[in-house]
């Protein structure tokens, strides 16, 4: 085992340490905080490259590419709970992507956040995020994965609510945490179930891990009372977590609101890395997702994978539809991200790890490019985010425009020259041959058309025509220098843009059907250039039709928005004019938020009131009743005592005493009364005797 595998833990720990030091340091040390964060992530990036090179050399020698290091965490009973990290092709690719994109975004942030008073805090949170995300990537234990996953969620919360004085930002942060936590509860239960069934949470542990053959065979064989295999139940529960984090319908509602955070955060967390962590999770536990009775056979659509595919396909179209009708530059990108995450899930479902992961990697580059471009635009327009008030930036921000255009074409999947084409095409190609249903393919193709359309719309709004920026537009300004004339951003922001643009354009070439290096690297096989692969008629027809759809989307976008330049900020949307009702439904996100507000949120609040009421009146009422009963009994007792017991006694006493008073008259001690009595008695006696004598 080589040095890099033994010390892979340094990759996540270095940024976390940087975060800790920054948290304890003084707020004023701005350059210190930024250089510490960038420096530590740069070292992590170099280590990631070493790790990547190591895996590459192993795979070129044809050796086993997966290496794990486990360690003991704590003991309960007689067993130790073990955590660990691993290095395999999947980890290596993700490590390089996360640390590289992260590094570029860190550098960009130095310029973007220059004027913010909480600059050091920002880099503290960013470093913590990077560390936790890298921890997710290297974890060899579902528990460690979950722990880092939750910390990633925390940093997302902290960064969405970074401008905490804005009530919307605070609400959005809370919403993001809670909605993802709903998914995480499923994940948590799935983890408990998996642990109970397999007795371990280590992914790979030389044959004893939960993703290895013996554990999977037991999971497939174990049928629960509802007739579902344990493996399916666990896989679906874990997918809940992935759906929450990756913004899949119906748990997508937090992601658009998360755009309240600073734009570099949206680029790093809510486009390139964290939201993709859900996709990565499914890729990581893919042996479990695809576990079926004949374990070793080819890819079979298991129940879990079918669910993943359908959710992904629906999300892909859902997000793309909503993106058409928004005016906020970041929200459009957010719905686009939701849509693209749907593609990734669909790719995992229909085509396997390589298909989904390829799109994840290319998307990370072109979407972070688009977000950073949007950040540059917002920065240049003094904080303006409404695309209706932009326009004409093609001339004033040329570098940003070119980079943005590259990202836009990559996202649309412009044929042959842009990375998005190859990765999206791999997904559509796999969906085309999916044995369960053809519908996901059609949904995906429709989504491709929509994507090209809404991106064209956005680009024409932002960069086309003339500037519609009003004087003194500072209503949403967070930076202090709101200016009416758009300007190009400084080099610290444009250089990362250019680098990302280069990757967004050319990265796709590592996974073309002719030279599927990416796919074979993940599966640990070797590959050669094989031009003849294009001759496959099914593949060719998919490529042609998706290209046609992209051109159609671009053309429609031009027809509606590019033909005549948009003159005023108040001018109605071209599609909105055509279909006002549909446009309004899309603009309100299909009323999903309103629906949740009216049902789940209200139910929750109501139920909490009920619990409070139960507590105050029922439980406490019962106690109060008992205590009142005791008091009533005491009162009754008292009443009985005073009025019955006492009263009877008192009455008797008074009778006796009255009798005594009467009798006391006899014993008055006065001679006259004695004489009077004797006299009276004598008379009575005399009368009595006389009366008797007369008889």
């Amino acid at each position: 085992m080589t040095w890099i595998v033994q010390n892979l833990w340094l990759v996540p720990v270095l940024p976390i340490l940087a975060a800790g030091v920054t948290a304890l340091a003084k707020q004023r040390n701005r350059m210190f905080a930024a250089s510490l964060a960038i420096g530590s992530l740069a070292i992590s990036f170099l280590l990631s490259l070493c790790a990547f090179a190591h895996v590459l050399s192993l795979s070129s020698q044809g050796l086993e590419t997966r290496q794990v290091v486990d360690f003991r965490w704590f003991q309960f009973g007689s067993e130790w709970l073990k955590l660990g990290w691993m290095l395999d092709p999947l980890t290596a690719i993700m490590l390089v992507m996360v640390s590289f994109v992260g590094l570029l975004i860190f550098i960009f942030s130095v310029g973007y956040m220059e004027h913010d008073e909480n600059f050091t805090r920002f880099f503290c949170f960013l470093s913590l995020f990077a560390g936790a995300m890298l921890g997710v990537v290297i974890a060899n234990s579902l528990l460690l994965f979950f722990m880092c996953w939750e910390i990633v969620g925390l940093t997302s919360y902290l960064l969405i609510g970074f401008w905490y004085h804005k009530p919307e930002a605070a609400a959005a942060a809370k919403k993001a945490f809670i909605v993802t936590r709903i998914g995480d509860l499923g994940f948590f239960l799935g983890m408990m179930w998996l642990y109970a069934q397999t007795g371990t949470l280590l992914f790979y542990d030389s044959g004893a891990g939960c993703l290895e053959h013996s554990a999977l065979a037991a999971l497939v064989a174990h049928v629960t009372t509802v007739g579902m295999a344990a493996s399916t139940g666990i896989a679906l529960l874990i997918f809940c977590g992935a759906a929450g984090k990756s913004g899949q319908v119906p748990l997508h509602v937090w992601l658009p609101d998360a755009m309240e955070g600073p734009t570099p955060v949206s680029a790093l967390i809510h486009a390139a890395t964290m939201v993709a962590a859900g996709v990565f999770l499914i890729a990581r536990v893919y042996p479990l997702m695809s576990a079926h009775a004949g374990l070793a056979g080819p890819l079979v659509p298991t129940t879990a994978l079918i669910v993943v595919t359908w959710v992904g396909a629906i999300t892909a179209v859902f997000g793309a539809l909503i993106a058409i009708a928004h005016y906020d530059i970041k929200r459009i990108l957010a719905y686009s991200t939701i849509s693209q995450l749907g593609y990734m899930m669909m790719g995992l479902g229909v085509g396997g790890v390589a298909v989904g992961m390829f799109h994840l990697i290319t998307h990370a580059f072109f979407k972070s490019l688009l977000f950073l471009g949007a950040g540059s635009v917002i920065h240049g327009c003094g904080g303006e985010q409404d695309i209706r008030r932009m326009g004409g930036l093609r001339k004033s921000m040329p570098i940003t425009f070119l980079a943005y255009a590259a990202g836009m074409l990559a996202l649309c999947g412009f044929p042959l020259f842009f990375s998005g084409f190859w990765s999206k095409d791999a997904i559509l190609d796999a969906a085309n041959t999916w044995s369960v249903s053809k519908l996901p393919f059609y949904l995906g193709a429709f989504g491709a058309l929509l994507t090209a359309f809404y991106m064209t719309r956005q680009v024409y709004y932002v960069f086309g025509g003339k500037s519609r920026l009003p004087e003194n537009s500072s209503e949403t300004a967070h930076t202090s220098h709101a200016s009416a004339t758009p300007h190009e951003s400084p080099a610290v922001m444009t250089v990362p843009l250019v680098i990302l643009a280069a990757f967004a354009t050319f990265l796709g070439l590592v996974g073309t059907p002719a030279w599927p290096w990416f796919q074979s690297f993940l599966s640990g096989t070797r590959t050669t250039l094989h031009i003849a692969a294009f001759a496959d008629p099914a593949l060719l027809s998919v490529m042609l039709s998706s290209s046609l759809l992209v051109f159609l989307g671009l053309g429609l976008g031009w027809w509606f928005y590019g033909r005549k330049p948009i003159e005023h900020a108040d001018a109605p949307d071209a599609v909105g004019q055509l279909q006002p009702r549909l446009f309004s439904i899309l603009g309100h996100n299909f009323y999903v938020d309103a629906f949740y507000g009216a049902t789940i949120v209200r139910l929750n609040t109501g139920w909490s009131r009920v619990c409070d009421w139960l507590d105050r009146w029922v439980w406490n009422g019962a106690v109060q009743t008992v205590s009142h009963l005791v008091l009533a009994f005491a009162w009754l007792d008292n009443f009985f005592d005073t009025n019955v017991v006492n009263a009877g006694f008192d009455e008797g006493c008074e009778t006796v005493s009255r009798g005594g008073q009467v009798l006391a008259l006899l014993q008055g001690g006065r001679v006259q009364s004695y004489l009077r009595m004797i006299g009276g008695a004598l008379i009575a006696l005399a009368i009595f005797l006389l009366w008797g004598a007369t008889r």
Partner: protein
Amino acid sequence: MSAFPWLTVLTALPVAGAIAVLGFGSRNKALARRLALGFSFLALALTILLWCRFDSTSGALQFQQQVAWIAALGVEYHVGIDGLGLLMLLLTSIVVPIGMLASWQIQERVGLYFSLMLLLQTCLFGTFTALNFFHWFVFWELSLIPAFFLIKLWGGPRSTAAATQFLIYTMVGSIALLLAFLAIFLATGKFDFIDLAQLAQSGHLMPTVIAKLAWHRFTPRHVALILFAGAFLGFAVKVPLIPFHTWLPSAYTEAPTGTTILLTGAMSKMGLYGFLRILLPIFGAQMQLVLTPLLWLAVATIVLSAYAALAQKDLKRIFAYSSINHLGYCLLAIFAVVKFTGGDADLTAEKYAAMNGVFLQIFNHALTAATLFWFVAILEKRTGGLRGLNDFGGLRKVVPVFTGLMGIALFSSLGLPGLNGFVGEFLIFKGSFPLVTWATSLSVLGLLVTAIFILGILQRVFSGPLNEKWAILPDLTTVERLSLAPAIALMFVVGLYPQLVLGFVNNTVIQIVQQLKF
């Protein structure tokens, strides 16, 4: 075994402190506070010394001291601790200084206040070390008296009612407990917990009781259940378990915050201690008979209390309900381990996990809840007693350090990985899930609702536009930061290295679980 009576000295130490505080500190407030704090730190040092001398590789009782007292009544002075006892002593020693520091602003009858606190500490130490029912019960009941006066004399506007309710409520539970134990004593002539546990384990306890007590109208099973119900009530009130909890919100809210820290940090653990030391070993079989309703009660405790917390507007009331919720997880796990008591080796590991989780959760809750109430005390000191959710807004701008540190404590309460709360809850759920699947699955709802109300606090108190009323609220002073730092640091340490606590309780857990065979 050490010949030196460590535990007796430890128990007596706070009383000595209380006398000293009353004697020297009745005039001088500052002296009284410092003296009391000094004694509590002395107790902490002594407990840490005990911990160092404690043999973690054994689950047996250590530092035992057994002296005949009233031989005719089977009364002995018998003290000793195992991992459970040591855990309780440690958390009491940690919580009491926190409670004192949080009471620093109290101005009336300072000497009396702090000596009552020390007296309460003695009662807690006595309860956690006693192994004979007689003096255990004396300490158990005696603890109510300082607590009653602390709530009544220094509490909020409705403190008299709250204190009276607290006293009578727990007294009712205690009387039921006493009656149950008197019945057992009449039958067996024994008061010693260890002897009784052995009797129960060998299956002789209940037959003896039933044979001796000629309650002919009841079946033997009913006699056993009645005795169990009596003992159960005593502890269920103390923890508390819904629906025996209604004294708690008003007592915690009306008590001065320093006292609330003691109530939630240490006194609520008396109930759990009773469950672990007395109910499980002695009444385990009866618990198993009525397991289903008990599980429902535990789930209700977890879910209903979390939802009730969501509806509160007063920070102290929120944390009071949150305490019920957190201890509910402990009860869930305790009930779960009596589900299967056969020799199934697979499930033994789950029971170890659940029990270790209970122990860790006890420690974590003491630390986190005490720290959270401490933050409330600091806030009250600055705002003149205001602590409503809607009284603030945007405080993060003026008190960033306070916000950051309280945020850490709040996330610890939420169960964020990396902080102490997570590991205990993970172990409880890991152990309980295979044992009582449905109850555990329902309890997960408590985790969600906890997140909602904790984030609600962060949102409404610390975020949003600054409430101008608090524009000059001072942030934490250096002294406050330094005194809070150890508590916050401990949250990280236990969260990252839980072996620190689990290391010395694990063998006791093994002992407790292995005794559960009936």
